[in-house]
């Protein structure tokens, strides 16, 4: 090839590259959920293929998700049609950037979820899309070590600790697994499980004497926890490799264990403390940014996601449960059945003490989580004095609550104005 020919080939290649951005008629579904490749594939093939508009489903990490969205909002035009994210992601946004969705006439079965979806305004800023929760899972081999008299569906924290200790004694290794890794959801355990179970609150009771007791209990649990837990983010992996026999995690982060070896694992409710069986939902929603290019098509996609049939398909694809009334078929994947039963037992238990997702924190949600993660690292990993750490962190928490003015949410008693740290 002569230089001239090479040059012209390169130029035509460049022209092709620039022209490759042809406009498209698909609605871009920009999501932070259903990220694992299998779930993304199922969302495309099984869920969104049935919509009457073409949808391009793109799951992302939180960072790129938000940056891209902010860029489109700032530029005033963009390609994102529909947003899919957790309540906390939407709560951190400016509600003026989200289109009011009241005219769609869509809502979740739960009034609480609908209230959360208004993000403090009068109108729905996102539509609740799907929900999940955190549960416990165990290898069947661990069951024989259950403390005598313990009912796996009504465990207390003391029994859980004893159980994990029994397993440790029998196998010579700590087999309780906790998602304390960099991407693990440990903060949710403290906010939605440990604190409600021991203090019947999260914010008000953050530095109470009962909270000191809760952390002491967690230290006991940590003593029988696999120390590699600081690297665990998806306990399904450790359950499958049998590094861990008993685990706490998000239902969708345990799903593969049940789906791959349904006969080897059991799912059961989170343990209870003196103040009941604390647990917390996970809520994801769909919204439309004000820069969506085809508003009508985007609204069609949102409506499609809330259709009962789509909700069941979504459940199969992502292990997230419907937020509207549906008739659940009997042939659901093992993980869905196991998690569904565990959540049902947990919420129906006599001592159930359900918490809500943090609300009204706006973009301080991450800082709020940080308070709990820091407390965990200082108290449990570094062995610092519990009272001193809580008194320290209390100042940070107070500042966050005052700055955002967020009122208390369950199980904290309602407040007028910002939720006080007592």
């Amino acid at each position: 090839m002569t230089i001239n020919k090479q040059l012209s080939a390169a130029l035509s290649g460049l022209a092709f590259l620039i022209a490759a951005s042809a406009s498209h008629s698909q609605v871009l579904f920009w999501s932070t959920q259903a990220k694992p490749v299998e779930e993304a594939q199922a969302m495309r093939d099984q869920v969104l293929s049935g919509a009457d508009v073409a949808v391009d489903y793109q799951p992302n990490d939180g960072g790129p998700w938000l940056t891209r969205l902010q860029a489109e909002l700032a530029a005033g035009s963009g390609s994102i049609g529909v947003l899919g994210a957790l309540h906390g992601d939407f709560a951190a946004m400016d509600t003026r950037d989200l289109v009011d969705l009241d005219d769609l006439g869509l809502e979740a079965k739960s009034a609480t979820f609908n209230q959360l979806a208004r993000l403090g305004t009068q109108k729905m800023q996102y539509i609740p899309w799907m929900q999940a929760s955190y549960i416990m899972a165990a290898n069947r081999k661990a069951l024989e070590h259950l403390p005598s008299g313990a009912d796996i569906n009504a465990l207390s924290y003391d029994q859980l600790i004893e159980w994990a200790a029994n397993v440790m004694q029998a196998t010579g290794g700590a087999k309780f697994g906790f998602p304390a890794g960099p991407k693990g959801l440990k903060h949710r355990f403290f906010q939605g499980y440990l604190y409600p179970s021991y203090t019947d609150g999260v914010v008000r009771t953050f530095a109470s004497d009962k909270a000191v007791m809760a952390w002491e209990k967690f230290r006991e649990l940590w003593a029988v926890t696999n120390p590699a837990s600081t690297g665990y983010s998806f306990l399904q992996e450790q359950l499958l490799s049998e590094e861990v026999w008993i685990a706490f995690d998000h239902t969708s982060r345990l799903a593969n264990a049940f789906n791959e070896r349904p006969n080897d694992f059991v799912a059961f409710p989170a343990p209870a403390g003196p103040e009941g069986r604390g647990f917390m939902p996970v809520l994801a929603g769909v919204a439309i940014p004000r820069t969506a290019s085809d508003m009508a098509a985007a609204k069609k996609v949102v409506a499609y996601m809330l259709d009962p049939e789509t909700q069941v398909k979504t459940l199969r694809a992502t292990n997230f449960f419907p937020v509207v009334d549906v008739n659940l078929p009997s042939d659901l994947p093992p993980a869905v059945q196991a998690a569904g039963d565990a959540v049902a037992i947990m919420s129906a238990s006599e001592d159930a003490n359900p918490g809500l997702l943090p609300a009204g924190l706006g973009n301080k949600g991450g800082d709020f989580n940080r308070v709990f993660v820091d407390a965990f690292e200082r108290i449990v990993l570094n062995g610092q004095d519990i009272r001193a750490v809580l008194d320290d962190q209390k100042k940070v928490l107070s500042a966050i609550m005052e700055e955002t003015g967020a009122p208390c949410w369950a199980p904290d008693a309602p407040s007028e104005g910002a939720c006080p740290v007592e």
Partner: protein
Amino acid sequence: MSGDMRLASRYLYGATIALLTIWVLVPLGLLLINTLSSPEAVNAFPKRFWPEFDLGSLRFFAGFDGMIDALFNSIWVAGLTMVLSILIGAPAGYALSRFDFPGKETFRLLVLLTRAFPLPLLALPMAIAFIRLGIDDTIFGLGLVHTMLALPFAVLITFSLFSGIPIELEEAAWTLGCTRFGAFCRVVLPLILPGITASAIFAFVISWNEVFAAAVLTIENRTLTAFLLQNLDTSPLHLKFAGGFILVVPALVFIFAVRKYLFAMWGIANR
């Protein structure tokens, strides 16, 4: 040197070579074995040392929508990055080594600045500008960003290469009737070709591995890394291995394809 010493140093040499080889090959081997294993085998312990040739994981990716497009996008972007960073970087390197101009030292330092700011910080204003300019979601736009990331390496590598070639060689060519450009093409270029290859490999790898800008700046035209990497960390183990394998292989193929130019730089005969 005594015989013992010579023997010992030969053993040490051999052991170092073996260690380095193992260092590179063992992770790749594990990646391959686990890619070609069933999910049960991947999670089992002790680990296998021989693949069972289960193609399930690879078959999953073969049916994964958009994979092939993403692979080609990656190749286009990496290729463009390579060409642009050499076209822009090599003249800058030449100028740095051959000419004295005011602000030369500052320029050498400033060129590193593109690496001083984390991409998550730069991505937002860049994305806004790209959307306004209309080069958002194009291979060309992303190629520009990756070129910016690869430029410091291209400039500094070529600078040291040009500095290693005596100006007398060029001067000799001038006296024999070459123009400045002709001398550069006939004398300098062949000598620094291996170095150019090295910085091209750098540019290729930088572009191939970059996730954040790619994830923010492309949507329809995603690169393979942006398309896969973000989703792999939450995927089950056997798919992590298979996905990792898919990400590594094209880069390996590329490096093997250009390796003879690299070896030439280190004085190993070009066969």
